[in-house]
């Protein structure tokens, strides 16, 4: 058991080291912070709303993550495959699950760090009014869950190919589908021919309603289960792909 924990933490540390030794982490952080600011104040109309909450801030998060998270996740496995280090990693006494979890946790830590650097937003809204801090905390939890769900998905697409660009595009499209699943033009595609439960299923796959609930300050176990099941499914698929495609 201690071997499991130390293996996972060794991989996590190594991944975090890789994030911060390259410019990727800094570029990502700066762009994330600039864009959240821009979307919140310029597009979201933070001041015009005249409300002491962060709705205009969280509104754009899934869209930002859709572009940015795949750019973090795309290299996770495809780089290992391309440079041949996958052979090194999987001939060490470590299971595929330990490696996958180690890398996933490192990505989570990094995204958590980025998200926590948006704290000036919280200070601002507190300075201007008297917001519901519970709702803000839940909003942050929701935002983090969306980010790590996308991270798990881009890890999966990364394990499928040694080409980072392909990995990026596929995960971007998958994330877009998750965002748009509940949107009428998408559900309309199914309404005309599919049974109603299929339409409901597709609509239920949408990430937005599960995020909106949390933004209002409601922690619904169904939302949590939704995110966790997407994450576990993606990580599990990653392990299947890695096991079957080690050779290619």
């Amino acid at each position, binding site marked *: 058991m201690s071997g499991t924990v130390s293996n996972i933490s060794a991989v996590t*540390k190594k991944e975090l080291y890789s994030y911060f030794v*390259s410019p990727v982490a800094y570029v990502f952080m700066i762009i994330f912070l600039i864009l959240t600011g821009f979307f919140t104040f310029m597009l979201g109309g933070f001041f015009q709303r005249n409300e002491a909450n962060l709705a205009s801030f969280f509104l754009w998060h899934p869209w930002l993550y859709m572009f940015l998270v795949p750019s973090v996740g795309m290299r996770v496995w495809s780089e290992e495959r391309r440079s*041949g*280090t996958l052979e*090194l990693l*999987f*001939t060490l*006494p470590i299971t595929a699950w330990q490696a996958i979890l180690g890398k996933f946790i490192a990505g989570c830590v990094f995204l958590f760090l980025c998200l926590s650097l948006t704290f000036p937003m919280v200070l601002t809204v507190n300075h201007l009014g008297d917001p519901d801090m519970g709702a803000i905390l839940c909003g942050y939890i929701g935002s983090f869950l969306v980010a790590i769900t996308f991270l798990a998905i881009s890890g999966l697409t990364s394990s499928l190919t040694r080409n980072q660009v392909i990995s990026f595009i596929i995960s971007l499209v998958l994330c877009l589908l998750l965002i748009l699943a509940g949107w009428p033009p998408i559900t309309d595609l199914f309404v005309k021919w599919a049974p109603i439960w299929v339409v409901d299923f597709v609509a239920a796959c949408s990430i937005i309603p599960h995020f909106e609930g949390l933004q209002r300050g409601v922690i619904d176990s169904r939302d949590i289960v939704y995110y966790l099941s997407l994450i576990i499914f993606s990580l599990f698929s990653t392990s299947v792909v890695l096991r079957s495609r080690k050779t290619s």
Partner: protein
Amino acid sequence: MIKVENLNKWFGPNHAVNGVSFNVNKGEVLGFLGPNGAGKSTTMRMITGFIPVDEGSITIGGFDIDEDPIKAKSLMGYLPENAPAYSDMTVTAFLRFIASLRGLSGSDRTIAVEKVIETCFLQAVRHQPIETLSKGFLHRTCFAQSIIHDPEVLILDEPTDGLDPNQKYEVRNLIKRMSERKAIILSTHILEEVDAVCSKVIIINNGKLVADGLPTELKKRSAMADSVIVKLNNAKYDDVSSRLEGIDGVDSVMCLIENEYFCSARVIPKKTGENYQNGLAEKIYHEANDAGWEICELKTDEGRLDDVFRSITTSDVSEGTK
């Protein structure tokens, strides 16, 4: 330590490894030879548990690589072909990472890292990112990674590939030094390396084991094995060949060099299964003395591994195409 039994691997219709079996014990260095694409790397990847075995079994120190992969892997050190390493890490950080995954921590880890940095002559580059290393240093970094936990079994895929002659010499010495306490498999297509370090040789071609034995035994298979090379001053080749061909047991005499000062010839014995090695050279010595030639070189050819290698691996290809 390493037991490979009837190993088979298919890539689609391509039978990449076909019924290969061998054993390596502690204290042995197995040279794994074969032309490019013969299945060497595939076999090594199966032994190290990177790709699954289709048929047959591999046990490392009693642990089956399929059933008990973590225990089997922890006994092994592996240097993959082309020496992959995490290019964004520094040499020390990389070695520390591998040491942690090898179950070392705290001061044990520090000691192990320092030790391999010293053994593999990496002091000068220890704080350099791996992507900036020259090929020789990269190779030695990856080699250091494979021995960091002092494994009982060492699998080296072309360990001296891309190194300069001095580095090759160092790496071979390192392997020789370690070989007393370990079971080592090394693949190579440099035949001098086998002479230098291996105690056992197997040759694989088209996925099949085509030769297995001691390096000296294999060399005996060479057409030139046991022939004697003689260089004589003040002698004419015609005289030399006629006198030497008269010796009992000589099959033929070949002229190597002839000029106004000396002549050099190769005397090929009849292949009767007997060992002529010492007897033939002695007879030639007496014959030359009787004829009044001055001997300035006389040596028995042990046979050349690359002749054997070529004859075994090319004849097999032509059989395959028939």
